[in-house]
Every structure is written in structure tokens, then in C-alpha cells.
């Protein structure tokens, strides 16, 4: 047995591996012999590493099983392997039926699910999907089960680009983006009326073809393909979740509903609104997106159609269902319960909502960088949850106590200075309005210190904070 490598030997081995790999195979042996003349066993070891054509290992390489290429599946001739996604392998195939050739994407479930109940469930889903006929929904061409029990689906192969990339690459203006988005909402609404929920809406499932038509993929099959096995009841099977797109109720493991799709549409709206959108329109669209992706399903738009209606209203400058200050039922309920505090408190909540809108903008402008987008989205989620906490605590006690509770949670954000900075600005505004000038001053100062280092804050936010600081400092009682 070979001895365990020490650090020095391993690092030399890796260097030799890369240097030798960069050479033509026939030159490697001579190169290694010369480069490791002092250590022939090392040279031999590197040569062994380079020479070994390992069989693919499911553990090291994932379990892609492109073994169906060249075979016939139902009316489909499998031409090539496309990708492994979710629980299925996806192949490129040509389907010939009634003398018509159609290029299809063939999704084959990875594992044997040949039990009677799975097949029955699959047939049920197939009937459901067959009902979906919409110009913006990719139709299911065929469904079947392989001899080994693995179910497969064939759907039209779309040669398109994810909607966000399409918008960015073509430099579409706000009206064109809104037009595309409304078409997507129409398709989602159509499916919802046929009682089919997508569960996993995201740009990679919304492709736009050359002619500019959006097509939704994978409708209703997300859950189908997520089946882990036969022992779980069909309706409790976990669906695939995409961080940043899945709704809070899906993340909690609750069943997805049409409201979950509305949530994803809200996330999409925020993603495709770009920095060139006129400010007023962008603010309205941010409110619409915030309402669509509200943490509480009941506070979202009742349907994708209603969401589309508000987007069109924003485009045309008409009054919205969603606008800052009345975006949530919670806020309205709060206002009706606490008439005494409405004037002050609704102003406070407005301040927080504006803070949330600011985060949406940050997220939008960071849409090109998925990791930044993810972070910004988690900030939105965090701030919204804090907003709810403020409202909840205010219902049971004093606003002062609620603010203190939020302030006490600030150390949670020590590794996310942007979130901490924005929270401090929001807190400063709130403390100022309840008359706690010292606390307000403290938070605005710390927030500005963060903003100076983080540099990712927009100028308006920073200017507002500086004005608040100046005001608070001027009003500060002179010390004894």
C-alpha cells in the first residue's frame, strides 16, 4: 500500500500533473522523467494518474446516465444527451409520428419507479398536462414508461434563451419587458385555471425564442419529476426548490399553490426591471413585485391575471392595488386597530417599506450576478420579516419595545454589512419619529460608517441619512 502523501510531495505531484497534462500524451513520459529525475517513483505516480481513463463514477461525477443515446423510446429516436436536471436526465430526440418529425426534449426519470401507483399517478398527470394548450406553454408531446419502469416525458425542444438574459442581451426597454412579463402571467393564469401549478418558475424555465415569444417549460411536471420513491403519498412529495425563487411556504415544506407561482412571478418581475426604467415606473413595479412576492400568501395578488393587471396599470400610470403604505393586509389591519397611532405609525411603516424598495433596487441592479442577487434577496426577506415583527409586536405592546427588539437582532447581521447598514438607517428613521433622538443618532452614525466602507449604497439613501444625522446633531441637547 502506498504511503500517505506529505504536503510537499502532493503539491509537487499536482504541479507535475498540470505541467505534464499540458503536453502532448507522447511527450509526457520524457517530460516527467526529466522533471522528476530525482524521484522516479513520483514520475511514475503522475504518469499513472494521467494515463488512467477512469470509468465514470456516480459518486465523483454525478449519476448522469447518458446510456439511452441511440435507442428508441416510444416514437422518439434519442440523438444525444443534453443535461441532468432535477430527478431526470434530459436527452435530445426526434419524435416521428404521422410522418411529422418534431425535435423534442426527452426527460427520463432516473430511477425505477415501476410500481403500479407511480404509473397510475403518471397517467393522471399526463391527462392534466394534455389539457394545457396555450401558445406560451410548451406542449407535452408524449409520456410513457420505459421497460425498466422509468417514466419519461417528451416535449417540444425550444431553441430559446432564458427570459432575463434575453431582455438584457437585446437591451429591451421597459415597455417590451412588461409586455413579455404579461404574456408569461397569461400562460401561468391559463394553467392555474386548469388547476396546474408550476412550482418551479424561474428564468431557466421561461425561454424566449428568436421571434420573441416566451415559452414556459416543465409546467406541472416539477412535482412529478421530484418523486423520491413510492413510499411517500403523492401529494406530500417534495418539489424541487430553487433558492431565491421558491416561496416561503415552499421553503417551509408546505404544499405549493397558485400563490407560490404568483410569488415566483414577483421575483421574476423584480429581476427583469432594469436600471434604465424611469424612476417612477421602477418604484411602482417594485411595489407590485413586493406585493406579488409577499411572505404571506394571503397578502399576494389573488391570481397571476390580477398581477398582470397591476403591471399594466403601472405601465399606464394608473392607480395600483399595491403601492407603498397599503401593500399589505397587515398594514391595513394595523391601521384600523390603532387609530391613535395611525398618523405616526403608518409613516414609520412607510419608511420601512421604502427601505425594502431600496433593497429591491439593489437586487435588480445586481441581477447579472447570481450570488449578489441571492444575497440581496435574502436581505429583502430579512427586512420584510423584521417589518412584520415590528407590526406584530406593536399590536401587543409599545412601538418602543418593538424597535428595541429589532435593534437587539442587529448583531445577527455582522457578516452582512449591507443588511446591517440598511436596518440601521430604517431604525434611525423610526427612532427619530418616536422621539428617541439619542438612539436614532447612534444608528444613523453607525449606518453611515458602514455605507462609507460598503460603497454599495445608492446616493439617495446616503444623502437622506446624512441629512438625518445633521438634523439630529443640530437638535441634540447641549450637554451639561
Amino acid at each position, binding site marked *: *500500500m*502506498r504511503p*500517505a*502523501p*506529505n*504536503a510537499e*510531495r*502532493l*503539491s509537487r*505531484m*499536482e504541479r507535475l*500533473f*498540470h505541467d505534464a*497534462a499540458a503536453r502532448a500524451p507522447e511527450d509526457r513520459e520524457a517530460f516527467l522523467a526529466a522533471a522528476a529525475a530525482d524521484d522516479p517513483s513520483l514520475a511514475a505516480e503522475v504518469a*499513472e*494518474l*494521467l494515463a*488512467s481513463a*477512469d470509468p465514470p*463514477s*456516480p*459518486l*465523483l461525477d*454525478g*449519476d448522469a446516465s447518458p446510456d439511452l443515446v441511440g435507442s428508441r423510446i416510444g416514437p422518439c429516436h434519442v440523438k444525444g444527451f443534453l443535461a441532468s436536471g432535477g*430527478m431526470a436526465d434530459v436527452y435530445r430526440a426526434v419524435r416521428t409520428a404521422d410522418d411529422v418529425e418534431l425535435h423534442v426534449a426527452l426527460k427520463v426519470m*432516473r*430511477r*425505477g419507479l415501476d410500481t403500479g401507483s407511480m404509473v397510475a399517478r403518471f397517467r393522471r398527470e399526463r391527462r392534466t398536462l394534455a389539457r394545457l394548450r396555450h401558445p406560451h406553454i410548451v406542449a407535452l408531446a408524449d409520456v410513457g414508461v420505459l421497460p425498466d419502469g422509468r417514466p419519461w416525458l417528451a416535449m417540444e425542444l425550444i431553441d430559446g434563451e432564458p427570459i432575463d438574459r434575453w431582455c438584457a442581451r437585446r437591451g429591451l426597454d421597459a415597455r417590451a419587458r412588461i409586455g413579455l412579463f404579461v404574456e408569461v402571467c397569461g400562460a401561468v393564469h391559463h394553467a392555474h385555471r386548469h388547476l396546474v401549478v408550476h412550482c418551479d418558475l424561474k428564468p431557466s424555465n421561461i425561454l424566449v425564442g428568436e421571434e420573441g415569444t416566451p415559452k414556459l417549460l416543465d409546467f406541472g411536471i416539477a412535482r412529478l419529476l421530484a418523486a*423520491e*420513491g413510492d413510499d*411517500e403519498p403523492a401529494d406530500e412529495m*417534495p418539489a*424541487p*426548490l*430553487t*433558492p*431565491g425563487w*421558491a416561496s*416561503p411556504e415552499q*421553503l*417551509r*415544506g408546505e404544499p405549493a399553490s397558485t400563490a407560490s407561482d404568483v410569488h415566483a412571478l414577483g421575483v421574476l418581475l423584480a429581476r427583469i426591471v432594469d436600471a434604465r426604467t424611469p424612476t417612477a415606473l421602477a418604484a411602482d413595479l417594485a411595489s407590485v413585485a413586493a406585493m406579488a412576492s409577499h411572505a404571506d400568501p394571503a397578502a399576494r395578488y389573488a391570481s397571476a391575471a390580477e398581477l398582470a393587471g397591476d403591471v399594466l396599470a403601472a405601465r399606464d400610470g394608473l392607480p395600483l392595488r399595491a403601492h407603498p403604505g397599503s401593500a399589505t393586509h397587515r398594514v391595513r389591519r394595523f391601521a384600523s386597530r390603532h387609530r391613535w397611532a395611525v398618523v405616526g405609525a403608518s409613516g414609520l411603516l412607510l419608511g420601512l417599506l421604502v427601505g425594502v424598495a431600496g433593497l429591491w433596487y439593489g437586487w435588480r441592479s445586481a441581477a447579472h450576478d447570481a*450570488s449578489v442577487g*441571492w*444575497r440581496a*434577496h*435574502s436581505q429583502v*426577506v*430579512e427586512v420584510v*420579516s423584521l417589518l412584520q415583527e415590528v407590526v406584530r409586536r406593536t399590536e401587543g405592546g409599545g412601538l418602543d419595545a418593538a424597535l428595541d427588539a429589532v435593534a437587539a437582532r442587529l*448583531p*445577527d447581521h*455582522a*457578516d452582512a454589512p449591507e443588511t446591517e447598514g440598511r436596518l440601521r438607517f430604517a431604525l434611525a428613521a423610526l427612532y427619530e419619529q418616536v422621539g428617541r433622538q439619542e438612539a436614532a443618532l447612534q444608528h444613523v452614525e453607525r449606518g453611515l460608517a458602514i455605507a462609507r466602507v460598503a460603497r454599495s449604497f445608492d446616493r439617495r439613501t446616503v444623502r437622506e441619512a446624512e441629512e438625518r444625522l445633521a438634523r439630529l446633531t443640530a437638535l441634540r441637547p447641549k450637554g451639561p
Partner: protein
Amino acid sequence: MTTQAWPPLVHAELRAVARRLMRRERPDHTLQPTALVHEAWMRVAGRPDARGLSHTRFVALAVATMRRVLVDSARRRCAARRDAGRRMDLDDSTPAADRCSRELLLVDDALRTLAEADADLARLVELRVFGRHGVDEIAALLGMSPRTVKRRWAFARSWLAREIRSQGR
């Protein structure tokens, strides 16, 4: 500490990692993704420093934790099979899932050896093999360029495959 204390997306992150892991496990795996997440969750969230963890650190811990859970479970399965009878040889008739459990233990051993010589490379492999993270994700998490991640993974993969071959016999 309750799970409520975590932002929901952290839970999503865990679930995604678990899902990628479970996909490669045997179909009748006794651990469902939810159970795996829960176990990893309890272990990571139970740490005294849990709330101050950065995203990078959290992902690393979650992946390491799930690795431990899976290795423990693979070890139990292999032991149970050994007890059931020794005529079980690793040949072509061995179900893929059984080979996978055994391979998982071999990778775990090899990774331990690797960590002693090159901790950075071992971390990369752990994210790749036990977290199923993509090249770009790993590059972001470890602060390397995607090119470096690809190169280092190519080497590590050859090295691991050889370790598995030599141990597996």
C-alpha cells in the same frame, strides 16, 4: 435554538445540498432528504457560534455535516451486509447502490488522507463530491478562479479515483 432563528433561505440552501446528495444515494435510502436536512440542521444550528456564521462558512459546515451523516449511514449499511453473509463479493452483479455505499466510504477515507497533505484541496473536493456544488459556486466560496477550481479538481479526481481503485481491491 429553533429553526425559526434562521432566514428561510439558509434552510433552502441546506435542502438544495441534501437533495443533490440524496440523488446519488440508493433509491431505498433510509434517510429522506428532509431527515438529512434536519439532522444537519440540528448539528450546525446547535453550535454555540451558529448565529454569527458567514454564508461561506455555513455552506462548508452544512456540507461537512451531511458528509458525516451519509458516511455513518453507509457504514451501517455495509456492516449490516457483512453480517448478513460473507459471500457478497463486489462483482458485476453487485447492485450499483451497494457499490456506491462502499465507494462513499472509500472516498471519505481518501479525503481524510488528502486533508492531511492539502486542506484546501480537500475542502474543494468536499464541496464538489459531498455538496455537488458547481465550479463557479466553489470558486466563489473558496475565493479561487473557476479555472483554478477546474484544474485542481482534475488532479484531485484522478488522485481519488486511483485511491479508490487501490483500496477497493
